[in-house]
């Protein structure tokens, strides 16, 4: 079991980001809404735990194993006072059980005033930090609306190590307007030089959640502000699939040469440092979630909380807290099979052919096509079973296959 906590505060908003975030006065200072939010999040955790207790019994029992991972994502969870993080993790441990050796990740921004106190976070139970570095090029960081510099990234990594954080990851962006292949190579070299354990490299994705219908009252996204929309439209014109493909190949090569394993389409790790929490998503394991916009999955139904912070806090405040507004979608068998295949193919462990290659399987002809066109390669799994996984080309063109599998 995995648990995700969404902390929707940032010092400022980045124009490309469509995560559920509130910024400015709501995040810091006298008018901050962090305090009431932490109370509400704790209340939601109690209610979610009550439901699990009722269904599966006490935590850390045979019918309800302890959590293997906890992930505080955002937003910028490193803005939370370490005491609050400690209190929340203590509550999680008491009500859900945090297993021995569980991975506890917290997302942080590298800026000196937002990265938090790594030592105190470590004391609170955090053992993995995920730093939103994005680039090691000062001009590019400004273009992206980031508040930090490349030096801040180095300081944040050093601080995490000094604070005793065992696993440090950085997020990077490619296909960014104005980003050359050389700048990208320098960024990769720079983060490798910092001795990080894990790198997530994402092509800048300029989505429009409004157009996708995700920003209604019960939607899991907030409406896109006009300024961000204009920024995305301008940036989209400067994106270039050829450059992006070159950058991706370069990342694969450099990170691979540095001993990192590309265990997922956008994720590379030194052996043993793969994100266990994220692997739970890709393996389609159940996960619990709390916080505005957070998604949970119990193996049959995908459920989410609505994005609006005020309504979230309102529902969970007072003497009789209730679950926040949100929605749920049951996953039928066909969709479940498609999900399992498209998620498994994101990983370098790929898909076992046992069932999928049965000629009667709806997946079979597509897998055969992908093998023939070089998107997939066959290999033998740990137990000698036949498996397929995406090639490097196949990763870059993965939607061509995945769109056939849904």
């Amino acid at each position, binding site marked *: 079991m995995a648990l995700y906590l969404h902390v929707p505060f940032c010092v400022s908003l980045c124009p490309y980001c469509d995560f559920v975030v509130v910024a400015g006065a709501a995040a810091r200072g006298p008018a901050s809404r962090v305090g009431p939010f932490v109370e509400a999040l704790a209340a939601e955790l109690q209610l979610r735990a009550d439901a699990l207790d009722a269904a599966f019994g006490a935590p850390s029992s045979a019918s309800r194993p302890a959590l293997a991972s906890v992930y505080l994502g955002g937003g910028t969870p490193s803005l939370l006072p370490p005491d609050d993080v400690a209190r929340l993790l203590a509550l999680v441990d008491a009500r859900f059980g945090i297993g021995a050796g569980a991975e506890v990740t917290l997302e942080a921004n590298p800026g000196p005033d937002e990265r938090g106190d790594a030592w105190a976070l470590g004391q609170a139970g955090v053992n993995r930090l995920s730093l939103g570095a994005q680039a090691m090029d000062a001009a590019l960081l400004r273009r992206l609306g980031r508040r930090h510099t490349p030096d801040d990234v180095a300081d944040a990594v050093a601080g995490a190590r000094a604070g005793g954080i065992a696993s440090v990851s950085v997020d990077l962006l490619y296909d960014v307007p104005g980003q050359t292949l050389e700048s990208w190579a320098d960024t990769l070299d720079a983060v490798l030089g910092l001795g990080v354990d894990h790198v997530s490299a994402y092509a800048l994705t300029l989505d429009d959640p409004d157009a996708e219908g995700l920003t209604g009252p019960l939607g899991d996204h907030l409406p896109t502000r006009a300024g961000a929309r204009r920024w995305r439209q301008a940036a989209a014109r400067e994106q270039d*699939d050829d450059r992006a493909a070159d950058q991706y190949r370069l990342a694969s090569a450099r990170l691979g040469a540095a001993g990192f394993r590309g265990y997922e389409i*956008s994720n590379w790790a030194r052996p043993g440092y793969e994100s266990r929490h994220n692997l739970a998503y890709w393996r389609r394991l159940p996960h619990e979630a709390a916080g505005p916009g957070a998604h949970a999955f119990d193996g049959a139904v*995908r459920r989410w909380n609505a994005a609006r912070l005020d309504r979230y806090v309102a529902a969970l405040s007072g003497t009789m807290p209730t679950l926040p507004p949100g929605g749920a979608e049951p996953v039928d068998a066909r969709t479940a099979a498609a999900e399992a295949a*498209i998620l498994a193919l994101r990983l370098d462990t790929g898909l076992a052919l046992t069932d999928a290659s049965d000629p009667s399987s709806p997946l079979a002809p597509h897998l055969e096509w992908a093998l023939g066109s070089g998107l997939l390669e066959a290999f033998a799994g740990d137990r000698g079973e036949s498996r397929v996984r995406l090639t490097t080309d196949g990763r870059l063109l993965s939607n061509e296959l995945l769109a056939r*599998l849904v």
Partner: protein
Amino acid sequence: MPIPQARLRNFSIIAHIDHGKTTLSDRLLELTHTIEARQMTSQVLDSMDLEREHGITIKARAVRLEYTAGDGLTYGLNLIDTPGHVDFSYEVSRSLQACEGAILVVDAAQGIEAQTLANVHLALREGLTIIPVLNKIDLPSAQPDVVIEELENVLAIPREEVILASAKEGTGVPEILEAIVARIPPPKGSADAPLRALVFDSHYDPYKGVVCYIRLEEGTLHDHDVIRLMASGAETELLELGVFRPQLVPVNSLQAGEVGYVATGLKNVREAQVGDTVTTVAKPAAQPLPGYQEAKSLVFAGLYPVAGPDYPLLRDALEKLHLNDASFTFEPESSVALGFGFRCGFLGLLHMEIVQERLEREFDLDLIASAPSVEYRVNLTANRGQLVVDNPARFPDVGEIESIEEPWVKLGVVTPDRYIGSLMELTTNRRGTFLTMEYLDPQRVHMHFELPLAELIVDYYDQLKTRTQGYASMEYEEAGYRAADLVKLDVLVNGEPVDALSLILHRDRAQATGRALTTQLRKLIPRQMFEVPIQAAIGSHVVARETLAAMRKNVLAKCYGGDITRKRKLLEKQKEGKQRMKRVGSVEIPQEAFLAILRMDEG
């Protein structure tokens, strides 16, 4: 009490677009109290929205006026409206055949135009009496003396016959009514002879079946007569007999010389076609009237529904529209790129536009038309005969072609003389040849050209209007077939020909057109998983080539807990997009790409 034959007058109005035919018709209706002024919607005769928007009359319409003349007697005047555009001279001649006279309306400021000239010649050939009317004399720019001189010079119309009028203000309209009575001869033909009535138009009514518009040449028709259509052989007891006022008003009988309608109850328009002769079963005529030549299609194009499943709707719509406009033809065809559709023949490019617009508006269809083509004659090698082809996709292989002939037209253009040079250049650039030219008045000329029809239908008319600030007018008639150095240009995507984009064109143009097509296609086709050559070729000879680079990236960068449903939906959208794609060989091309390239031609 029917009006005796001696007091019937059947006439049309011949006029150039905007010279005031419709306004004059409206005044005639008002002055004869056929429609009271307060009931007039502007331009009663142009009943289709589309006609009002284009400001032109597409289909012939008819109306019966009752006019008490200066002699105190009441006359029955049948006004048979004529279309006023260059594509519709066929319908004009049809209307004229039902008349004994025609009012020639000429704008006193603009002078006589090419189309009007052609139509007056048609009327004279039919032996019609012409009543010349100079309209818009109220305009400050009117030059009645110049135009009267023009009529005298060009059409030998005596100046004393010309009536000066302003249909807008009503000036001269009473004189026109009197002239109709005085100058146009009454119809002849015995009311006692066996019935012979010419079907000059028709429309389809869901309750009354095919409603034929008829001009009785001989005999008498009573309600409840059993009629026979002499060409089709169809017999039916007529449902209703009437006249146009302008709405359909039933009467008990119609007799020789009159114009009216007969509701046949027939459900199949082929049983009561325009040009057929109506007679009675009880007392049949021995010989039918000389009919019409079937409307000849000059321009051909494929019409396809943008959404494939709309194909049956398009078929129904074409069938219904054909009931009211038999002058276009259609037969099923299919295309790799565009799916199932219909090959349609039209009288001209405007006719094609109008049919397409009516289908889209009246039947709520979204259509795409392939590039318009003319009908070519292809002489096969080894004396294997001649093929008639109107669809480039059906052209035989280069090796089988001995020679190709294409249709030419005689083109008449009336223009202010300052544009002579520009029009010479326009026409010769399109392989046309200049024949002769005469001055209509000191500033205006009538130019005569010959030109391949294929060059005319591209955008000649638009160019003519652009280059002359709208002052020039044109008309054309067929001028037979001539051999030409034509080639079929194919567009190949990854080596596979794209049927909908094949073109027949002059060899000299092949390379430039091929370059334009391949360049556009490279921009419009999404990148595939492999490199795709896009070529334009004549037979196996490639004249232009572009390369569409292989797709490099199509990946969802992020996919975490909250994204899974969202990302799956994005993938489903991609899948739906792919399912809508047309496949040319192994290349997937969105239909929008074809639409864009075909619409580019239209623009």
